[in-house]
C-alpha cells in the first residue's frame, strides 16, 4: 500500500490536488483537495445587493454568465419579480452560448489532448488523434478557436462582452435586440452550426440528437467515421473508457434554460434508491463542513443558515471545499445529470448498461451541443424587438432569495439575504462543489473520490493518465468550487 499525491492538474479551471492510496496497483482511497480559497462569501457581506451582479460573475471566468444568472435569479426572488419574456430569451441565449462554448473548449482543448500522449503511441488511432488533438499543435485547436470566438460574438451583441458582463439583471437584460441584431445572431448561429456539422459530427445536429440507444450510436459511428465525435468513440471503445471513473447514478439538475412555462431540460433528482425522476426540493440541500478547512458548524446547514469562514486548523479538514449533500446523498451534476433527468434515450440506455463513467459524461456534453444550438435559433426568432427586455423593481431593504441555474458543469445555486438594504449573507454552491466535494460527517466520499476507486495506476502510481481522464471527464471548474 502506497500513497501518491497528484497535482497540479492543468486543463481544468483552477488548481486541483488529488491524493490516493494505492493497493495492488489500484486506487483504494482518494481524497480530493481544492487548494485555493479566495472568500467571495466574505467579500459580499455588507455590499449593496445589486453589486452582487458585479462580484459574482468574477468568481469564474469560464462560468461567468452562469454566476450572473444565478445571482440575478436570487435577486429577482428577493424582489418578487419575474424577468420580461425578451429578457428571459436573451439571458438563455447568452447562457447557452457560454455553456456550449465551454463544452467545446472542454472537448477540444482540455480532454482530448491527453489521448495524444506518448503512452498511447501503439494504439491504431494514435497518429490521427495526435495530428488532430495534440496540445498546442493539433490541427483542431485553431479551427475550434476560430469557431468558438465567432460564436461568442453573440455575447458582444447581447451582453457587451464575455466573460464578466453586467447585462444580466433580475428583470431581464440591459441590452435589447433590434430586428437587425436578430438576423445577425441567426447568422452567427448558422456559422457555428456549420462548424459542428462539418467537424464535430459530420452530420446534421438534428440527426445526432435523435440517436436513441447504444446500438444506434454504434451504427452512427460506422456511418460517420470522419467526425471528431466518432474518433472519440472509437478510442473510448478500445480503451474501455466506459469502465473508467464509474459511479452509481445519483443525479441532480436545477433545470436548464428556464422560461415562465418551464425548462428546456427539467429540474429534478434521479437517485438510485428511488425509481424515476423525483422533484428537487432545495430545502433538502445541506453543506457539510466536517472535512473542510472551515469553521465547523454542529450540523450540516442549508445555505440560508450557512457560514463560510476559513479555518486551516480544522484537524479533519483536507480541502477548502465544503461537502454539499441532497437529502444526505452525494450527487453528480453536469450534462450527464441533465440529460438523464431529461430522460434522453441514448444516455438513459448508456447509464442503464454502464452507470456513470468517463464515456457517458463526454457523450452527454457533445449531445448537448447538438440539442441546444437549434433551441438557440428558435429563441432568437422569438425575440420581439419592440417589447421591453428588462423589468425594473426596487430591492427590498429586508428579504431573501434563491437563484438556481444550470451552468455547463451542472447545478449552481446562490442564496442571498438582505438586511437594512445590504447583503447580510450570501452563499454559493457551484457544480464542482458537488462533484469534487470532500467526505461528509458520515464519511461518504464525494463523487470524484468515488469515481477514482479501483482505477489501475500501477504500484507506484505512475500510470496516472487514467486518473487524468477521470478527473477531466467531469470538466471540473475549481475556481467555482471554492470561491
Amino acid at each position, binding site marked *: 500500500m502506497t500513497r501518491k499525491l497528484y497535482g*497540479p492538474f492543468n486543463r481544468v479551471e483552477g488548481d486541483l490536488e488529488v491524493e490516493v492510496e494505492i493497493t495492488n496497483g489500484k486506487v483504494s482511497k482518494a481524497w480530493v483537495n481544492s487548494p*485555493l480559497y479566495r472568500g467571495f462569501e466574505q467579500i459580499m457581506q455588507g455590499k449593496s445587493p445589486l453589486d452582487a451582479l458585479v462580484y459574482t460573475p468574477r468568481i469564474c471566468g469560464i462560468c461567468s454568465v452562469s454566476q450572473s444568472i444565478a445571482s440575478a435569479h436570487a435577486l429577482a426572488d428577493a424582489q418578487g419579480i419575474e424577468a420580461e419574456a425578451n429578457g428571459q430569451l436573451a439571458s438563455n441565449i447568452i447562457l447557452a452560448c457560454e455553456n456550449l462554448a465551454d463544452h467545446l473548449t472542454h472537448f477540444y482543448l482540455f480532454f482530448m489532448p491527453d489521448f495524444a500522449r506518448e503512452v498511447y503511441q501503439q494504439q491504431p488511432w494514435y497518429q490521427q488523434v495526435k495530428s488532430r488533438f495534440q496540445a498546442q499543435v493539433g490541427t483542431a485547436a485553431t479551427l475550434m478557436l476560430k469557431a468558438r470566438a465567432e460564436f461568442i460574438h453573440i455575447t458582444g451583441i447581447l451582453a*457587451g462582452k464575455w466573460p464578466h458582463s453586467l447585462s444580466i439583471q433580475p428583470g431581464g437584460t440591459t441590452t435589447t435586440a433590434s430586428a437587425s441584431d436578430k438576423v445577425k445572431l441567426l447568422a452567427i448561429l448558422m456559422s457555428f452550426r456549420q462548424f459542428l456539422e462539418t467537424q464535430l459530427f459530420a452530420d446534421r445536429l438534428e440527426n445526432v440528437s435523435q440517436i436513441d440507444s447504444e446500438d444506434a450510436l454504434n451504427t452512427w459511428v460506422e456511418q460517420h467515421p470522419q467526425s471528431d465525435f466518432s474518433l472519440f468513440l472509437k478510442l473510448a471503445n478500445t480503451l474501455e473508457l466506459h469502465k473508467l471513473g464509474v459511479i452509481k447514478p445519483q443525479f441532480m439538475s436545477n433545470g436548464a434554460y428556464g422560461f415562465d412555462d418551464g425548462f428546456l431540460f427539467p429540474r429534478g433528482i434521479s437517485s438510485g434508491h428511488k425509481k424515476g425522476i423525483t422533484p428537487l426540493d432545495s430545502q433538502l440541500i445541506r453543506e457539510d463542513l466536517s472535512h473542510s478547512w472551515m469553521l465547523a458548524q454542529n450540523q450540516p446547514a442549508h445555505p440560508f443558515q450557512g457560514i463560510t469562514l476559513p479555518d486551516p486548523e480544522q484537524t479533519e479538514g483536507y480541502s477548502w471545499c465544503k461537502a454539499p449533500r441532497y437529502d444526505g446523498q452525494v450527487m453528480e451534476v453536469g450534462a450527464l445529470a441533465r440529460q438523464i433527468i431529461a430522460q434522453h434515450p441514448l444516455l438513459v440506455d448508456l447509464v442503464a448498461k454502464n452507470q456513470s463513467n468517463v464515456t457517458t459524461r463526454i457523450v452527454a456534453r457533445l449531445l448537448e451541443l447538438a440539442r441546444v444550438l437549434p433551441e438557440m435559433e428558435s429563441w432568437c426568432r422569438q425575440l420581439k424587438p419592440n417589447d421591453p427586455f428588462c423589468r425594473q423593481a426596487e430591492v427590498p431593504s429586508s428579504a431573501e432569495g434563491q437563484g438556481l441555474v444550470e451552468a455547463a458543469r451542472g447545478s449552481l445555486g446562490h442564496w442571498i439575504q438582505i438586511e437594512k438594504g445590504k447583503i447580510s449573507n450570501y452563499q454559493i454552491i457551484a457544480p464542482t462543489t458537488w462533484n469534487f466535494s470532500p467526505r461528509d460527517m458520515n464519511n461518504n466520499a464525494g463523487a470524484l473520490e468515488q469515481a477514482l476507486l479501483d482505477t489501475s495506476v500501477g504500484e507506484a502510481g505512475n500510470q496516472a493518465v487514467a486518473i487524468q481522464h477521470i478527473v477531466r471527464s467531469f470538466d471540473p471548474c475549481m475556481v467555482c468550487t471554492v470561491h
Partner: protein
Amino acid sequence: MFNILWLQSGGCGGCSISLLNAESPDVMTCLKSADINLLWHPSLSEASMDEFVQLLDNILTDKIVIDALCLEGSVMQGPNGTGRFHMLAGTGKPMMTWLSELAEKANYTLAIGSCAAFGGITAAGNNPGEACGLQYDGKVEGGLLGKQWLSSTGFPVINVAGCPTHPDWVTNVLMQLASGELQHADLDELNRPRAYTDHLVHHGCARNEYYEYKASAETLGDIGCMMEHKGCLGTQARADCNIRPWNGAGSCLGGGYPCINCTAPEFEQTQLSFTETPKIAGIPVGLPTDMPKAWFVALASLSKAATPQRLRDNAIATKIVNPPGTKKEHE
C-alpha cells in the same frame, strides 16, 4: 524562441478564457507569428502533475530559461501571511513562494489582469484572502515583490490590467516583448501598457452625443449617458474598450451597463454601488480627471439647456424613439 511560463493563482481564470477569444488571428497564430513558445499554460499545455513540477524545478535550477513569467490572479498571502490560501497542488509550497522564486528567473514578469497587478476583485471587501498584486497592493506600491523590484532586464512588473483583459492587450504586449520592441516609455505610471491606457473608455463611446448634452440615462438599459446617475466611470477609465471592440462588436457601454474602471487599482471598492453615481449637491463627484470642476458645471448647465428634444427622448428609452431627421430646406 521566446519562452512563456503562465501561472494562475487567486483569480477566476477569466483572462485566459478571454485570451482564447483572440481573433484575426487566433491566439495560437499570434504567438506563432512572434516565435513565442508557451512553455506551459494552464489551459493549453499537455504537461500535468509531476511533468509540470519538474519543469518548475528545471527553471529554478537554470536548466530552462523563461523569457516571460505571466501571473493571472492575485497573490494569496493569507491567512496571516502564510500563503496557505493557495498551496500549489502537488508541491506543499505556497504559490506566493513559487512566484517570488520564479520572478527572479524571468527576463520579464507580467501581471495579467487587475488581480495579478493590484489585487483586484479578490481583494474586495475586507480582503479575506490577504490578496495583493505582484508589485502593488491596491494603489500602494509594493505587493509581493516590493517597490524597488526589477526583472533581470530592468523592467518592473508589467501590469496588463483589466477585468478581464482584452485578448489583444495581452497578445500585443507579449509579441512586442518577444520582438524586443517594448520600451520603458511604452508603460504608463502604473506600468500598464500605454498601447491601451493612453485612451479613455469614453473615447469612441456610442453615447458621446448624450454626454455632450448631458442627456442622461435614468435606469439601467436606457441609452443615455450613464455618468450622471448610473455610476459610469468611462470619462476617467484608462482603456480603449470603445475603440477596440470586445467579442466582435461589444463593450460594457454597448452592453447597456456602466464602465466600472476595471483597469484601475481598487476599482473593486465602491462608494455607493457600481451602478449609482455618488454626488455632492447634485453634482457627480467623479468628474473627468483633467477638467476644472467649475468649467464642467458651467458647460454642463449650458449644454443641458441646449439639449435637442431627440436626445431628451432617447436618453431615457431603451431604444431609439426619436431618430435624427433630415433638415428641411426652408428651415
